[in-house]
């Protein structure tokens, strides 16, 4: 008997006309973990989440949620799951409190139970003062928080979140991340799709990299970071493009690797500490002023770029 809080996906595929949106994707989300589904826009993240939650029909493959086979009957496991879509799709004509009560009613909760639960969630999500305000009058951050609260109304064992912090202010995003960690501590299994790699690194135990509908790699954050541990990267902001000096730099500093990123930027990487002074002196002798030098932490972003060849700034493009 499979665990009541896990997700098992085998060979899941979906195409729209000639476009293969999801291509034979297989993964497992374990009981109580936060699983990140990372990829650039158009990678197939939302299509996957739609198939898992019953909003889209897979062309082929198997989905088992909480031990229930739901490839053919997506309604079968809907009572176990809560879904936070990528858009804040509650009803602008209803108050925050009424929206939550309505979502409870959709899952058959008795009136008194849903009123109590709605009050508790409004308190938990810091929205008590806005309980009687129309949802349409909420700020973006408040809307996202209420949408997450709505997904939690029926206390689902598994929570799907599609880009939960996309397009909201830093403070609200931090608040949402804290809430997700609290839910995780309470035992909820969380399936999180995001194009923000740093968010996945902060929240998830395991992540899958999805590119063009295919999974490139699934592993724990620790294992993924292993190859880049001990590496160091320094980024120099320069007064001009250093293309002509690259060969000279490589001859003078053979243990470092050099690359030009954005205009006027030089990235230096090495498997040991990079001393700044000799590099600044060399560049100065070449007539290039160093405007800024910063040490970059090796992160999941670097791993993603290495594995997929997709630059991180492409991931950060808003939907």
């Amino acid at each position, binding site marked *: 008997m499979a665990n009541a809080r896990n997700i098992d996906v085998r060979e899941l595929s979906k195409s729209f006309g000639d476009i293969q949106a999801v291509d034979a994707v297989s993964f497992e989300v374990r009981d109580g973990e936060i699983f990140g589904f990372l990829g650039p826009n158009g990678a197939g993240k939302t299509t996957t989440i739609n198939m898992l939650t019953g909003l889209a029909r897979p062309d082929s493959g198997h989905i088992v949620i909480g031990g229930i086979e739901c490839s053919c009957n997506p309604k079968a496991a809907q009572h176990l799951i809560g879904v936070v879509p990528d858009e804040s799709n509650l009803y602008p*004509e209803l108050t925050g409190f009424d929206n939550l009560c309505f979502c409870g009613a959709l899952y058959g909760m008795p009136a008194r139970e849903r009123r109590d639960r709605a009050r508790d969630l409004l308190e938990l999500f810091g929205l008590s003062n806005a309980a009687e305000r129309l949802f349409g009058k909420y700020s973006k951050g408040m809307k996202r928080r209420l949408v997450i609260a709505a997904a939690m109304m029926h206390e689902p064992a598994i929570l799907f979140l599609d880009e939960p912090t996309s397009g909201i202010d830093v403070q609200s995003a931090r608040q949402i991340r804290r809430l997700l960690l609290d839910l995780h501590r309470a035992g909820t299994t969380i399936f999180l799709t995001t194009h923000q790699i740093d968010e996945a690194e902060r929240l998830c135990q395991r992540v899958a990299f999805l590119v063009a509908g295919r999974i490139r790699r699934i592993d724990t954050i620790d294992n993924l970071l292993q190859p880049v541990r001990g590496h160091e990267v320094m980024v120099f902001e320069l007064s001009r493009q250093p293309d002509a000096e690259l060969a000279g730099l490589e001859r003078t500093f053979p243990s470092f690797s050099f690359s030009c990123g954005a205009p006027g930027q030089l990235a230096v990487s090495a498997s040991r500490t990079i001393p700044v002074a000799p590099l600044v002196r060399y560049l100065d002798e070449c007539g290039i002023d160093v405007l800024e030098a910063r040490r970059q932490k090796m992160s999941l972003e670097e791993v993603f770029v290495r594995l997929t060849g997709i630059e991180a700034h492409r991931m950060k493009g808003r939907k």
Partner: protein
Amino acid sequence: MRRNMTVRHLRAVWGILRKDMKAYYLKPPNISWGILFPLVWTAMFFVKTGREPADIAGVLPGMIALSILFGTTSMLAVTVTFERKAKAFERLLLAPLPLGLLVLAKTGGAILFGTVNAMVPLLIAFGMNGLQQVDWAGLFAAVLLIAVVSTFLGLFIAVSVNEVFEAQTFSNFFRFPMIFLCGLFFPVADLPAVLQPLSWMLPLTYGADLLHGAINADAMFSPVIDILVLLLFIVLLFALCLRNVHRRWIS
């Protein structure tokens, strides 16, 4: 277990119905639309035809049918197409509620709205001549069946389009011809012979006939036939709507 499930489903259906009432149907613009529209129809027919108040029974079936048809189809274009556009409908599709029940819940408000719309010309007529000869049971059955069939027609239109304006345009493609083709204000037999087969294919023809029978005892068919044909249209439209929701929205 099964009983528990049924109770949960009923709570969900009631929740959707209540939410639609609160969010859409009981809003002042819709209340005024529900009252004003039938009122204007009624006044227009009296001014135009110059009839005596005692003759109101002659135009009452047409006014009731029109009020229901326009009330239900207009509201569904908003409540379904708009929610679909705003992705709020996805929230309903994610609920552990069978699709058939979800569709019934979503249409329940429009059926009630159409029924209330029908009461406006009926109350006016009642105030003017007392409606002594009316078969009330037949009349209310007709009102309810027209409300259901018009609602499902509206839903069929709403699930076939993507935008609210498309729903309104597509609705008019059906609604306006029905004013002339369904025997609302003059008998189908008076239509050119080439148009009459079209009339028999439209559900409102049978609803209007049921109303004519209940109000003026001048129906073309027996009420049993009208009711059976209307029920057939209801089942067909419901099945078509479910199929379209499956094909278009759970793609």
